[in-house]
C-alpha cells in the first residue's frame, strides 16, 4: 500500500507492506538512528516523535503514520551543530555506547517542549521508558537539567530583545 508522510520535514511517498512497522520503514529509508533493540515496547531505543509526541516506532504501524509528521534524532541537529540536549549529553559524559541515545534525545526534546524547568524527578519519570545499560542514568539526568538551563537562558534572550526594541 502507498503512504505519504514527513520525516524531519522531508516528504516521503512510498510503497509499504500492510504489516510494516515504522522502525523498519525508517531504517529502510536511511534513518539509521532509529534502533531495533527490544521489540517489546520495553526499552525506548526506537523512540521517534510522531506529531511532536514521542512514540515507539517498533510498535507503530507505518500504515497508521500516513499523513503525519515523524521526527527522528537526525531532525534535531543541523549539520555540524548539536542541539542543547545533544551537547549536554556529550559534555556530561552521559553517552557511553550511544545505542540508546537517539531515542533518549527524541524523548528529552519532547520533555523540554512540555516543561522547560523540570526537576530530577520529573526527568526520570518522563524518561523512564528509555533504558540505558551503560551509564546508570546519573549523568543523563544532569545533562538534561543542564540542557534545560541552557535553553531557558537562550529562550529568554529574544524576550528581552523584544522588550528593548519596543
Amino acid at each position: 500500500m502507498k503512504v505519504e508522510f514527513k520525516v524531519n520535514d522531508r516528504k516521503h511517498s512510498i510503497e509499504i507492506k500492510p504489516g510494516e512497522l515504522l522502525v523498519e520503514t525508517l531504517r529502510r529509508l536511511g534513518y539509521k538512528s532509529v534502533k531495533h533493540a527490544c521489540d517489546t515496547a520495553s526499552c525506548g531505543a526506537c523512540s521517534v516523535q510522531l506529531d511532536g509526541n514521542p512514540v515507539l516506532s517498533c510498535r507503530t504501524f507505518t500504515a497508521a503514520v500516513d499523513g503525519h509528521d515523524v521526527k527522528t534524532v537526525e531532525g534535531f541537529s543541523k549539520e555540524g551543530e548539536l542541539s542543547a540536549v545533544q551537547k549536554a549529553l556529550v559534555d556530561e559524559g552521559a553517552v557511553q555506547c550511544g545505542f540508546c541515545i537517539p531515542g533518549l534525545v527524541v524523548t528529552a526534546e519532547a520533555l523540554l517542549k512540555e516543561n522547560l524547568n523540570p526537576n530530577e524527578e520529573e526527568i526520570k519519570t518522563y524518561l523512564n521508558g528509555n533504558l540505558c545499560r551503560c551509564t546508570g542514568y546519573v549523568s543523563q539526568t544532569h545533562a538534561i537539567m543542564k540542557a534545560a538551563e541552557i535553553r531557558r537562558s537562550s529562550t529568554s534572550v529574544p524576550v528581552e530583545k523584544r522588550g528593548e526594541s519596543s
Partner: protein
Amino acid sequence: MLKIKEYLKPKTIEEAYEFGNLLNSLYVSGGLIVAQLKVSHLERLVDLKTLGMDEIEDGNTVKIGANVKLASFMKNSILSTLNNGFFKEVAKEIGSTQIRNMATIGGSIAFRLGWSDVTTIFMTAKSQVELYDGIFRKMSLENFIKDGKRDQIVTAVYLPKNARFLAFEKFAKSTFDIATLNLGIALSLKDDRIEDVTVVVGSRPMISERVREVEEFLTGKDLLSSMDKAADLMEKVIKVGTDMRASSEYRKALAGALLKKAMRRICHESGIQS
C-alpha cells in the same frame, strides 16, 4: 513486521464493524498490543483511529472517546483535574511516556489483558462502556469485562462525576514493569462512615475483579479502624494465581497490603489522622 494482507481504514463505524467481522480480522487503535502479536492466521487489521472517537466531553459524566490516549490523563484539562488530579497522578504509574502517547483507553480495556491498570482504575470509578455491534449499547465496564463479546467495538468510556475518594495502588518489580498486582478503591464518607465503596483488584494475574466481600465489610465502618480487618478479609477472599512474577500466596498478601496503602491514602486526603 506483521504478516498481514490488508491494513484497512474504515470511514464509518458501520464499515469498521463490517471489516472487523471478516475472517481473521483484528481491530487496532494504538498498535502497542497488536504490533507484537504472533498470530499466524491474522490477515487484516482494521484501524479504528480513522474514526476519530478521540474527544473528551464534559457533562453529567465525562465521555472519553475510545481513541483517547492515556497521555490525556495528564494533559487534558478535564481529565487531569478530575477527582483532585487522581487520573493525572495514576497515569505516571502506567507504562512510559511513549506508551501513554500510544495506548488508547479503548485498547487498554478491549483486549482484556490481565495486567491492565486502566481496567482496574476505571472499574473502580464505576465506569460504563459504550459499544458498537450493529447498534450502540452501553454497559458497565465490570459487565463488559465479564460478558462482553470480542467483536464489539469499544467506542467510548463514561466516567461518573462524583465526589468519591479514589485511590490506586500498583505493585511491580521495577518502576517500568507491569503490575504484579494492582488495586483500586473508591468510597464516600458520611459522618466518617464509609459509603458507596468499590474495591477492585487486578493483575492477579487474572483480569481486574471487584471484591464485593470487602466492599460489604467496609460499608458503614470508619476508615481507620477497619483497615487491618479489611486487609485480613481481602487476603482470605481474593482469588489470585501463580505465575513467573509471584506466587498466589504472595499476591494475597499484596492485595491486603495494597488495600491498606490505598485506604491510608484516602485517610490522608480526607484529613483523617492515621
